[in-house]
C-alpha cells in the first residue's frame, strides 16, 4: 500500500486536471472491478457488483490544490493565482511543478522594509514564479497562461508516519483502491467515485452519484489532526488512533444511521476509531447528501497534520484501519 500512496501523492492532478491520477487508479484496479466510466464532469466511477440491487457509493476526491498561471511578464516571470484553499506562505521559497517546467516561487520587495511588510501581509499578488525562462516567449511555450501547477514535493516515510503533498485526498483514493482490491462478494453493489474539482467547491461530487442513485454514500477524506504544538483547540483528532468517523463539520452533518453503521463496522472488524467534530471545513459528503432526493451520507476521515501544505502527514495505522473498516462496512445490510 505504501507504493500506491507514494505513486498517487507524487502524481500531478490539480482541480480540473486529474487525468494522470485517474490513470494510476485504473492501473491498480485492473482485474478487481466489474466496470468503470467517466461521467460528464470527468469523475472516474468504478464498481463491483453485489448480490442484491442496493448500492453504496464510496467517494474520494482525486484532485489536489494548486496554482494557475495568470500572467507572464517580458522577462518570463509568471504570476499565479491559487486553485483551492492555498496559503501564499506555503509557496515562498518552495517549488511549483507544471507539466513542462518547474519554478521557484518568491515574493516582491524593493527594500528590506518593503520585503518585511510584504511578507507579513503576503498575498498572491505579491508572488511571482521563476521557471528560468529567458523571455516571455520561452515562458509562454512552456507554461501558457491557464497552466496549472502543484507543489513540487515528494513522498517520505518517517517510521509509521507518511509525509507527502496531496495526501488530501490521494490517501483517500489509496484507501478506496485497497478496498476494491480486497472486496470479495460484497452484499450490495459498491461504487467508487474518484471525484474531480473538490478543492474549489465539491464540483464533481455534486453530480457523481446522479446516474447511480445509491442508497448511501461515504466520503473518505482527510481531516485536521491537532496533536502537534499549539494545534487547534477543541479538536480531538490525533494521528495513530485510527480512522475518524465524522459527526459534523462546517458543511455537513453526517447521517446518523450511516455513522452507526460505520461504528458497527469498526467494532466488527476490531478496528480502533476516533470520532470527529471539525469546527471548519467540509467534504464531498455535503454535496452527495444533496443529490436528487437526498442520499444518507457520512465522512470517514484520515487525521492529517499540516493539511494543504507540501508536507501533509498521516499515520499508516489510520490508513490501514480505514481500509479494514470499509471492507467490514461493505458486509453490512443497508437499512434506513
Amino acid at each position, binding site marked *: 500500500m505504501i507504493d500506491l500512496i507514494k505513486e498517487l501523492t507524487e502524481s500531478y492532478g490539480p482541480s*480540473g486536471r486529474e487525468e494522470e491520477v485517474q490513470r494510476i487508479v485504473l492501473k491498480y484496479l485492473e482485474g478487481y472491478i466489474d466496470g468503470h466510466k467517466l461521467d*460528464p464532469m470527468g*469523475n472516474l466511477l468504478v464498481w463491483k457488483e453485489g448480490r442484491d440491487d442496493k448500492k453504496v457509493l464510496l467517494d474520494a476526491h482525486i484532485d489536489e490544490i494548486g496554482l494557475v498561471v495568470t500572467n507572464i511578464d517580458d522577462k518570463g516571470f509568471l504570476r499565479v493565482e491559487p486553485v483551492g484553499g492555498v496559503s501564499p506562505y506555503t509557496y515562498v521559497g518552495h517549488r511549483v511543478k507544471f507539466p513542462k517546467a518547474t519554478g521557484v516561487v518568491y515574493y516582491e520587495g524593493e527594500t528590506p522594509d518593503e520585503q518585511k511588510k510584504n511578507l507579513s501581509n503576503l498575498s498572491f499578488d505579491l508572488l511571482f514564479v521563476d521557471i528560468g525562462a529567458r523571455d516571455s516567449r520561452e515562458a509562454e511555450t512552456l507554461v501558457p497562461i491557464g497552466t496549472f501547477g502543484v507543489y513540487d514535493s515528494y513522498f517520505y516515510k518517517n517510521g509509521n508516519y507518511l509525509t507527502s503533498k496531496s495526501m488530501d485526498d490521494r490517501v483517500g483514493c489509496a484507501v478506496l483502491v485497497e478496498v476494491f482490491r480486497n472486496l470479495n462478494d460484497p452484499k450490495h453493489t459498491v461504487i467508487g467515485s474518484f471525484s474531480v474539482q473538490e478543492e474549489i467547491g465539491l464540483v464533481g461530487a455534486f453530480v457523481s452519484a*446522479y446516474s447511480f442513485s445509491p442508497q448511501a454514500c461515504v466520503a473518505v477524506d482527510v481531516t485536521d489532526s491537532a496533536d502537534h504544538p499549539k494545534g487547534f483547540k477543541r479538536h480531538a483528532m490525533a494521528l495513530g488512533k485510527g480512522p475518524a468517523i465524522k459527526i459534523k463539520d462546517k458543511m455537513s452533518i453526517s447521517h446518523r444511521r450511516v455513522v452507526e453503521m460505520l461504528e458497527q463496522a469498526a467494532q466488527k472488524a476490531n478496528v480502533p476509531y476516533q470520532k470527529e467534530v471539525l469546527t471548519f471545513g467540509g467534504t464531498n459528503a455535503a454535496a452527495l447528501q444533496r443529490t436528487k432526493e437526498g442520499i444518507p451520507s457520512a465522512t470517514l476521515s484520515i487525521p492529517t497534520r499540516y493539511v494543504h501544505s507540501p508536507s501533509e502527514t498521516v499515520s499508516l495505522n489510520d490508513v490501514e484501519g480505514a481500509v479494514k473498516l470499509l471492507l467490514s462496512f461493505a458486509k453490512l445490510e443497508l437499512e434506513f
Partner: protein
Amino acid sequence: MKGVKAMYLKELSELDGVSGDEGRVRKFIEEKIKDKVDSLKVDIMGNLIALKKGTKSNRKFLLAAHMDEVGFMVTNIEDDGTLSFGPVGGIDPRVAVGKHVRIKGELAGVIGYKAIHLQRKDELLASPKFENLRINIGAKSKEEASRKVEIGDYVTFATDFRCENARATGKAFDDRAGCAALMEILEKGQRYEDDLCFAFLVQEETGLRGSAVLFEQLCPDLALVIEGTTAGDDPGLPEHQWATHLGDGPAITFMHRGYVVNKKIYESILQVARKYDIRHQPKRRTAGGTDAARLAKTGGGVPAGVISIPARYIHSPLSMIDLADFNNTVLLLSKILEEGEGFAK
C-alpha cells in the same frame, strides 16, 4: 453606429431588468427571436428557453446568457418623501452617488449625497453606506411618494447607450452583450449539427439561480456561457493584474470561482479561434463566477465553457466595450457551432 454591427445592443442595454424583474428584456428578446427558432418557452423561474433542431441531433448544446443586471430595490418610503434602497447584486455604493435612476422602468429619480461644502475633510472620499443614501423622486411627503412608488419596486441606473469610435458605453453590458451575441447567432438563421438550446437566464447576479433549473428541463451534453466580464485594464492596477484587455478579443476562461472549465471545451475554443485567426485572449484572473459553475454542479453535470466580452467598469452606471470584441465573440461562437460534432469531441 456606422458600419459596426451590434444590432440589439442599444435596445437591450437601455431596457431595465434587475434580477427578478427581467420581464421587459425577456419580452424584447422573445419578440425578436420567436420566428427564428423551432420552439420557445418561459420556465417557472422566468428563463426564456428557445430550441433549434440540429441536422444530426446527436448532442444537445446549450448556449446561455443572463438577462438580469445589477440594480437596486426600494426598501422603505421615508416621511420626507425620499426612498431608502438596497443593492440587488454586487454594487459598490460609491458608484451610486450623484446618479440618475429609473424606478419600475419609468419613474425618474436621483441618488444624491451631501454637497462637498457640508462634508468634513475626513468624510471626503470615504465610502458612503447604502443606509445613508436616498433616492429623491421630487416628492415632498411620504403620501406623495407612496402614490408613485411601492416598497419592493426595482431601480436601475438611467444610462443612455452611446457609441463612438467603435467603443460602446451604456449600462448592463453584463450580460446584455451576451444576450445580444446569442441573438446575432439566431439572426444568421443557420442550422448546425447539434441541437441548440438558447437560454436567456434570470437571477445570475444574485447567485446563479436561473441556471440551477436548466438540467432537469434540457439535459444538455455541453454548454457555453456568454458573459460580459471585467476588463480591469485601468491605470490604477499594475498590468499583471489586468483580467482582460479591451480590444484584444473575446476572453476565454480557464477557471473562475467554483469551477475549472472543462479542459476539452477550453482547448477546443482556443483551437477554433486559432484556426480562423479570430482575435482572442485568455481571461487573466480567476475571480468572479458564472452560470458555468452552477451547470457543472446540477443534475448529472453539464461541462461548460465561458467566453466573455471584456467590459470596463462593470456593475456601475456605465460600462464600456469595444465593438470589435463583440463582433469577434459572435464570429467565434458561429465558427464553434459550424465545427458541429467536432467541437469538444
